[in-house]
């Protein structure tokens, strides 16, 4: 940096030698500038290429093997063609419903604590930090812990344990987004509530949360989308099931689990179904996320916080 400022000074009173040096120097600087720009553009392209490749392949392979049977049939036995993943789609729905109904309320409440009660407190910082760290815990470890906690006690795999595992994974994400969204609500709005004599809890419920609700809903959907594709924590909790089951106390099928089982199998027919399953999984995630976003932005959900 110092060299360059000196260079600028020298440029003001150019002698012949300095002039040449400065030309070479500025050519060098210009070239390295262009080189780096090129590298940055190149790396962006390199990064986007696999994404495009994944999405295209998914569409190509998945769409060509999707049919009605996929949505209405249970998996066919080995050696038979056809069959679908209807039970896994139902199972994923049940597990995700369970997870959301447990994880989202706790996550929002913890976020409210951080933003409205814990600002600047030691405990608030500790909770925030723990939530961030919990967010990075590998999902397979979560599955192990829930296995030891619930499955071992129950003595069998169950949909319930899968739901709990995913709920725990949702909590930190929901907490942090709720907190961040509540932080964006101006203090003056809350103070107006207090000035009217509204107690703190009503102020939080009807003013802060309501103002921040679109952001919070988006955060919840992101957490939902993240756990919807999780396979590792379900391996030893929900376990998977080849037949119809809606019993919370029994092993249950899940879309990501079924994709995993089919992908590592040696049969072409099952690979085909795995691609179809992957396409359906991504579609389900994207459709549910965008649906809730649309509904939230229309204001239908806004009052319910």
């Amino acid at each position, binding site marked *: 940096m110092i060299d360059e400022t000196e260079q600028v000074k020298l440029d003001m009173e150019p002698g012949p030698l300095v002039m040449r040096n400065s030309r070479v120097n500025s050519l060098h600087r*210009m070239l390295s500038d262009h080189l780096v720009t090129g590298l940055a553009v190149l790396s962006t392209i390199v990064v986007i290429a696999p994404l495009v490749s994944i999405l295209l392949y998914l569409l190509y392979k998945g769409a060509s093997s999707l049919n009605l049977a996929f949505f209405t049939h249970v998996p066919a036995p080995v050696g038979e063609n056809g069959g679908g993943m209807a039970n896994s789609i139902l199972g994923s729905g049940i597990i995700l419903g369970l997870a959301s109904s447990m994880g989202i309320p706790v996550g929002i409440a*913890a976020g409210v604590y951080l933003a409205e009660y814990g600002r600047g407190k030691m405990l608030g910082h500790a909770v925030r930090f723990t939530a961030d760290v919990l967010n990075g815990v590998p999902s*397979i470890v979560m599955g192990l812990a829930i296995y030891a906690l619930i499955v071992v006690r129950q003595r069998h795999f169950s949909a319930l344990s899968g739901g709990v595992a995913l709920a725990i994974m949702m909590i930190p994400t929901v907490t942090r987004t709720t907190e961040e969204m509540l932080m964006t609500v101006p203090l003056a709005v809350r103070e107006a509530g207090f000035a009217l004599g509204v*107690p*703190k809890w009503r102020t939080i419920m009807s003013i802060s949360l309501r103002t921040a609700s679109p952001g919070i809903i988006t955060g919840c959907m992101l957490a939902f989308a993240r756990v919807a594709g999780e396979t590792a924590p379900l391996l030893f909790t929900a376990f998977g099931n080849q037949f119809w089951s809606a019993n919370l106390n029994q092993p249950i099928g899940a879309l990501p689990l079924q994709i995993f089982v089919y992908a590592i199998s040696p049969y072409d027919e099952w690979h085909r179904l795995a691609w179809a399953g992957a396409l359906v999984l991504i579609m389900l995630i994207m459709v549910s996320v965008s649906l809730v976003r649309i509904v939230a932005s229309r204001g239908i959900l806004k*009052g319910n916080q």
Partner: protein
Amino acid sequence: MTDSTRVQVPHIVVNDPGVSLEPGPVNTGPDSIVRQYLNKRSAGKFADGTFGTVMLLSALSIFMIVGLIVFTLTTGSKLSIHEFGWKFFVRSAWDPVNGDFGAMTFIFGTIATSLLALCISVPLAIGVAVFITEMCPEQLRTPISFLTELLAAIPSVVYGLWALFILVPIMRDQLGPFLVKTLGWTGLFGGDNFGIGILTASIILAIMILPVISSITRDVMRAVPINQREGMLALGATRWEMIRTGVLRNARIGIVGAVILGLGRALGETMAVTMVIGNRPDIAKSLFAPGYTLASVVANEFTEATDDMYVSALVEIGLALFLVTIVVNAIARLLVWAVTRGTPPRSA
């Protein structure tokens, strides 16, 4: 940021403080009985206290979750810890039949794949972050950042599927032979190349951790004040000099944090790696050789583990993974926080 939310407001209507109310949906109808009831009764100190306690308990439940995880994993792995002690982590035996266990090969696999993945993804991630924050035309910024975030939304098992059917053949037929021809002298690319192995696993890991690193690097770079950039440009610096000395140098601690966060993600990634690494407990010099990671051995063998010592050894691996990722994440969070505190959260 200030503490003024905690201003104590006198309760004007204090009616019957003994009534506890669970917060519920508020009916907005004008004449609703619920509304009238709430208006009359809701100002109690008791309700406020209850609400505050429920929120506090929810926040504390996060500690409880971490505590429970540690507790269950420690009790689950007691047998193995007692039998093998700390030597568990330096022994490379893995013999379920004779009950002889050691985690060295898995630790090697995990570290090798994670570091290799970092080597591939860090330069790319920083390049993308630099492009998006400093160079990109305004119209391209949103679609490109949306696309890179989309990478993070794809489930791990779908990455695995893609890697298994697209990346593995490419590795086997094109990239692998190319690497042998150009870099074969390093000795890192010896042996048979089946397409599955440590290198393939590292590539898929690199793709998966890229969005994490690049989005946090972007946040950190955005936290550098605009004056720094203007100052550099006013001194006659080119754009690259401005980025290097004005932005990257100021943001370096946060970028290191982002990289460590990516490392944490890579260490614990399970499904995609399990599908392409080959799953053989072996320490090989060649990057084409199959390996095994901590997370994938748990995923593969836990449901098949029959005797107690086997289960216990796998749980101990899980515990080790948990503790390592906790430490790695804590360090990363502290570094990122040191740079970005005081800047508003990203809106998009």
